[in-house]
Structure formats: structure tokens, C-alpha cells
């Protein structure tokens, strides 16, 4: 730890010099004299990027952790619901000619698909081995990918933003940030608050918590477990759909878009503690920030010890490992995750 502080100083100096290098006589002299405010702005902007990515992961992980924690179901097809959310949004937005209407309809559609999926397919997997869950839901991934190919074709779709969301806003003097990413942050925070109220303050939430702590006892007390499971799964599906439809205007809507991000969502729920929404929230923001900050500053840090070319090649490789390192550390120190749901 002791060596870290001087290293950071050297690093910050090098970054500020790096940023300053192009400053030629024609440039704004004020900026050349005070490089630090610009560096601070960059840092704030990167933190916002990390926060936005983390909150998006949270939406995906919240559904996953609910289903895993309460229903004890490993759902690999969660990423397919994310994909469906995006496809629905692109389709409905094109039909209604409104981004917001498209998003709301897509959310409802994913909820319905999720509940139908639980009733038709997943119900048969309860009480079976986790391996059966993995096999069954992996089959569902293939099914949904093929279904999407048949309905929408292989080329993918795009979802355009309305004018008021396209351009950036100036958050602080000199700090421009895409409006749409701010909208994602605000929406995800609102959803987090909604989930908190739902889980901690409502009767449904009480049942969800009871189900997470002791499923058998909850059932024995006369709670309609079937209905509870359908609702929880539908909620999880809608959250995944929301994540997918919010990503759609940033990424393209394409087959298999949920598969890579699902791995990160699993990392998040393992770090956060399976079944814990609070854990998922904190772990998701942590993973988002670490991943983004790693990508943002690792190349510059490595350039202190490596050649520029080597650094820019190695940095993406190392930064993609950081979150898995975090997971490994958490698993060693707290195998149950940071916020384990109280004992079963």
C-alpha cells in the first residue's frame, strides 16, 4: 500500500503531461496552466461512465439474483429476456413512432413473456439438480436465438433516440455528458428505489424475503408459492427487458446480445451474495466502476513501465481480468458474498 501513493502521483503527473502535450501556442493558455481541472473532469466523467454501466448491470443482476435466491433456479436464459426487451422496444418504437411508448410496451411484453416462460417451461425444473437448470435454460437460449432469427431476421435492428435524448448536456462547466446515459442512471436509480420499497415495505416483498430465507417454511405457512414464483420470475424478466431496451439505443439490437453481459451479471450476484438485492446493487456499481476505471486509466499507468504500443495491447487484457480478480478475492474472504441473505 505504501508504494501506491507516490505511484499515483507519478501517474497523475504523467497523465496531465500527456493531456497537455498537444497544447500549442494556439491553444487556450488557461488550460495549459491548470491541467488538473481537466484531469478531474475526465475522472468524474469516467466515474459516471462506470456508474452508468454498473447500474445497467444491476438491473440485469437484480432479476437474476431474485430468481436464483428465491426460486433456487439457475437461469442462463436471463440474457435472452434482455435480448427480447431490446427487440420488443425496437419493434414497438417503430410501430408507435415513439421511443417512450415503445419502451413501455416492451417492458409489458417482456413481463408477459417471462411469466409465460415460467408457467410453460421453468416450472418443470424446480426441485431438480442445478445441472438440469443449466441444461434446460441453455436450451432456452438456443430456442430464443433461433426464434428471434425467424421473426426479425439475422441482420439486427437499430433503435433511434428522440431528439431530446441524442445530444449531450453540460453537467458542470466543461463537463459534457450524453443525456441518454444520464437518463439510464436516473431510471436505474428509480428502479433500485422501487425494488427497495417493494422488498422491504410491501407484503409481496415480505413473502419474497421469506421465500429467500426459507422456502419450505414459507410454503408450509400457506403462501401460494406457485403464484409467488410466477410473479418473481415475471419481475426478473421485466428488469432484464428494461436493461436490454435501455442498452438498445447505445448498442445494436442483435441476436445473442445478452450472452456476454450475462456472465458479468453472474459475477455481480456472486460478489453481492445470491438472493440479495442490496448486494446486487453495491456489487454492480463496484464492478461497473472497477471495469471502467481500469479501462480508462490502466493504459496510462502501464505506459510508465512499458512502451506505448505494448501498454495499449496489454491494458485491455489486464483490465478485463480486474473484475474476476475482485470476484476471486471476495470468494476467498467471504464465500457467501458481501451481503449474504441470512442463513437457510
Amino acid at each position, binding site marked *: 500500500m505504501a508504494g501506491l501513493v507516490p505511484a499515483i502521483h507519478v501517474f497523475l503527473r504523467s497523465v496531465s503531461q500527456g493531456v497537455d502535450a498537444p497544447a500549442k501556442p494556439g491553444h487556450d493558455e488557461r488550460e495549459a496552466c491548470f491541467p488538473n481541472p481537466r484531469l478531474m473532469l475526465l475522472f468524474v466523467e469516467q466515474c459516471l461512465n462506470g456508474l452508468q454501466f454498473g447500474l445497467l448491470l444491476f438491473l440485469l443482476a437484480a432479476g437474476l439474483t431474485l430468481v436464483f435466491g428465491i426460486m433456487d433456479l439457475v437461469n442462463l436464459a436471463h440474457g435472452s429476456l434482455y435480448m427480447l426487451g431490446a427487440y420488443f422496444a425496437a419493434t414497438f418504437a417503430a410501430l408507435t413512432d415513439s421511443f417512450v411508448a415503445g419502451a413501455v410496451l416492451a417492458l409489458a411484453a417482456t413481463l408477459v413473456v417471462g411469466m409465460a416462460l415460467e408457467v410453460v417451461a421453468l416450472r418443470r425444473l424446480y426441485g431438480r439438480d442445478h445441472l438440469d437448470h443449466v441444461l434446460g435454460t441453455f436450451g432456452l437460449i438456443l430456442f430464443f436465438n433461433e426464434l428471434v432469427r425467424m421473426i426479425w431476421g439475422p*441482420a439486427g435492428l437499430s433503435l433511434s433516440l428522440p431528439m431530446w435524448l441524442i445530444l449531450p448536456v453540460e453537467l458542470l462547466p466543461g463537463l459534457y455528458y450524453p443525456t441518454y446515459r444520464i437518463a439510464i442512471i436516473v431510471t436505474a436509480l428509480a428502479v433500485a428505489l422501487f425494488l427497495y420499497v417493494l422488498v422491504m415495505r410491501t407484503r409481496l416483498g415480505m413473502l419474497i424475503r421469506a421465500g429467500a430465507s426459507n422456502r419450505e417454511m414459507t410454503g408450509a405457512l400457506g403462501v401460494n408459492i406457485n403464484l409467488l414464483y410466477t410473479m418473481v420470475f415475471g419481475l426478473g424478466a421485466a428488469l432484464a427487458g428494461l436493461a436490454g431496451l435501455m442498452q438498445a439505443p447505445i448498442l445494436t439490437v442483435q441476436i445473442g446480445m445478452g450472452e456476454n453481459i450475462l456472465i458479468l451479471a453472474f459475477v455481480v450476484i456472486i460478489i453481492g451474495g445470491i438472493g440479495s438485492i442490496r448486494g446486487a446493487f453495491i456489487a454492480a456499481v463496484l464492478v461497473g466502476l472497477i471495469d471502467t476505471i481500469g479501462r480508462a486509466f490502466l493504459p496510462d499507468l502501464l505506459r510508465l513501465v512499458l512502451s506505448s504500443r505494448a501498454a495499449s*495491447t496489454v491494458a485491455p487484457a489486464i483490465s478485463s481480468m480486474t473484475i474476476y480478480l475482485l470476484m476471486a478475492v471476495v470468494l476467498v474472504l467471504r464465500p457467501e458474498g458481501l451481503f449474504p441473505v441470512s442463513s437457510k
Partner: protein
Amino acid sequence: MKRILMGTAAFVALGAAPAAAQQSVKIGFVSTFSGPTAVIGNDMRNSFEVALEHLGRKMAGKPVEVIYEDDQQKPEVGVQKSQKLIESDKVDFVVGYIWSNVLLASLGPVVNSQTFLISANAGPSQIAGEQCSPFFFSTSWQNDQTPQAMGEYMNQKGVKTAFLIGPNYAAGKDMLTGVRATFKGEIIGEELTRWPDQLDFSTELSKVRAAKPEAVFVFYPGAAGVQFLTQYTQSGLKGQIPLYTAFTIDAITLKLQKELALGVPGAQQWVNDLPNDANKKYVADFRKKFGNYPTFYGAQSYDAANLLNSAVVAVNGDLSKKDAMRAEMRKANYASVRGPYKYGNNHFPIQNFYLQDVVKDAEGNLTLKTVATIVKDSQDRFHDKCPMKW
């Protein structure tokens, strides 16, 4: 769908009548036919089929059979499929390859079996240099060439400082090196991103904003190009810092990029409006059949079929005469849709590069248009390292 059925029928016929197979020209075609980049593979296959139809599905009087294999954009799958084509299908030629890392993995097994491999897209620097092979030909370019042309264009525009962004794999590194080779201004930032799983470029775009370059050069093939352009616009950088591209805007991605691509220049060795007869015929028939414009991936696949045809015709269908076929292919003696070109000692084309821009055609569709010739008869920088001389 019809195409798939025909392919299947050919495949079934193959199994049923091995005797007939000896009479035909057998071509293995490796490209990506599943996953998000399957649209590129489909475009290559469609163009290859159009070329075969123009040839009457015959080369030197022999029927042509094509076996399409999906590399899933993974080097380990690509090499396995290439080996299968050589060892169990015993094809006469292997064609295709979108991705440089897939081609690098697959090259050895194919050329070591003395089978000709025609790359219809990927052009890694290694194969242009030390790893060049008498059994390898390219109908595309060496990766560095196109960005080198873009670097030249940036010089012409008087750009003083630039920021380079690309994916962290063989072609991404070649592309950025290519710009460095010709761009005379200062490169004040370079970012390589995780490939192919990183789709969000917010971190890199924030760095661009902080570095304040006069220009950004970017290489993102396929859907990643759509994502990059969308996010570049959303970040507000599009109006502030001009974007220069290689292989980021093509006929497929344009359908998703739409108006965002207007005014973003790219460099290319082929554009759909090049005024030669072969190209007019290819583009017209492709559009008639599939409704949309072909991509450069398709044009290169169309050329690959015709290059092969020239070799097979030259030996009158006697495919054992490999030296004679090589000698013929070295002449590039066929009507390429990019216009005439020559081969360098490493079997990569020496060719012109054009500046392309996005415009609306007569029917209001967005399409690409040739604006100017950036460089004439450009040869890649690695041919000196290739020991092959002829």
C-alpha cells in the same frame, strides 16, 4: 432459404455419388454464418453465388461445388473447419475468411496441404511478410493499406493531431499501425478495446474529449461500427471532432447507421459505383436478386470466384497443374470489379484506394459513393519481408 437448400442438395449429392465429385471443381468457403456478424458471411456467400451464376456454375466446363463452413468468428473453430475441408471433403480450393485472427490460425493447415487459399477479406501483416505462401492469394488488401490511405487523406485535409481507436486483435493492431505509417501529424492518443465483447465505448470517448484531437480515426467492422458511430453522436463529439474511418461504414452497417453516417469519410479499394463493366453487372445483378447494395466483403468474394475461374480455365480444368494455376493467378487476368490490378511478390494486390462518402441514391436509399482517388497503385509495406520472388 433457396440458397441453403441448394447448398444442402449439393452436399447430399456429394455423399451419394463420390465418383461424380472427381469431375467437379470443389471449393470450400469459410466465413462467419452465425452470431452477430453472420450478415457479413451471408453477403460474401450471396456474392460468391452471383459470381458462380455469371460463370454458369462451371469452370472450364466442370461443374462447381461449394461447401460453406461457419467459423463462428473464432480462430479455433476456423482452423477446425479448414482442416475438415482439406482432409475429409478434399476440396480443391479454400476461399473466404473475414477475420485476420481466424485466417492466421487456418493458413498453415491449408497451404501445407498444397491447396490454394484465397482470402476474400482478411489481410494480416504476417501473411504479407514472413509467412507469405505460394499457395496464398488475396483478392482484398493487406490490413495496413486501407488505413494508410486514410492517413494520406488526413494529411491532405491538414489534420495536425489525431486519436486512434480500434479493437484489440490482429487486424485492429494492423489498422492503427497503418495510419501511423502515413499520417504526418501527431498521434496524441491510441486505444485498443476488448474484442469482440466490448460494445460500449464510453470510456474511450471520454478520453477523446479530454485529449481534444483535431481528428479521430476509427476501425470497427460489422455491428461494432454501428455502435461506435451511435455513441460518437450521443457523446456530442460528432459535430466537434471529424471522424475518419476504415471498414466501419459499409452497405450492411449503413442500414443501421442511417443518417449518422452522412459526412463520415472512409477509404476503400472498391466502391459500388466504380465505373467498370464487371462492377456494373455485379452490382446490378446483386441488387436485382437481394434488393440491397453489396458490400466490399461481397465484391472481394465475387473477385475470388473469378480469380479461381481464370486459373482453372488456364489449365483446362486439370487441377493437378498447380504451378500453372499459380502462374495464371499472378497475372490477375480477370475482370475484377475494382478494375485492373497487379499482384505483388507476396500475392497481395497492388491497387488504388478511393475516398468514399455516404449519399442518398435516386430512390432515397443511403449508399456509398466514390469521391476521389486517394492513392494509386499502393503496395503493402510488408512485401520486402516476404522471401517469395517471381
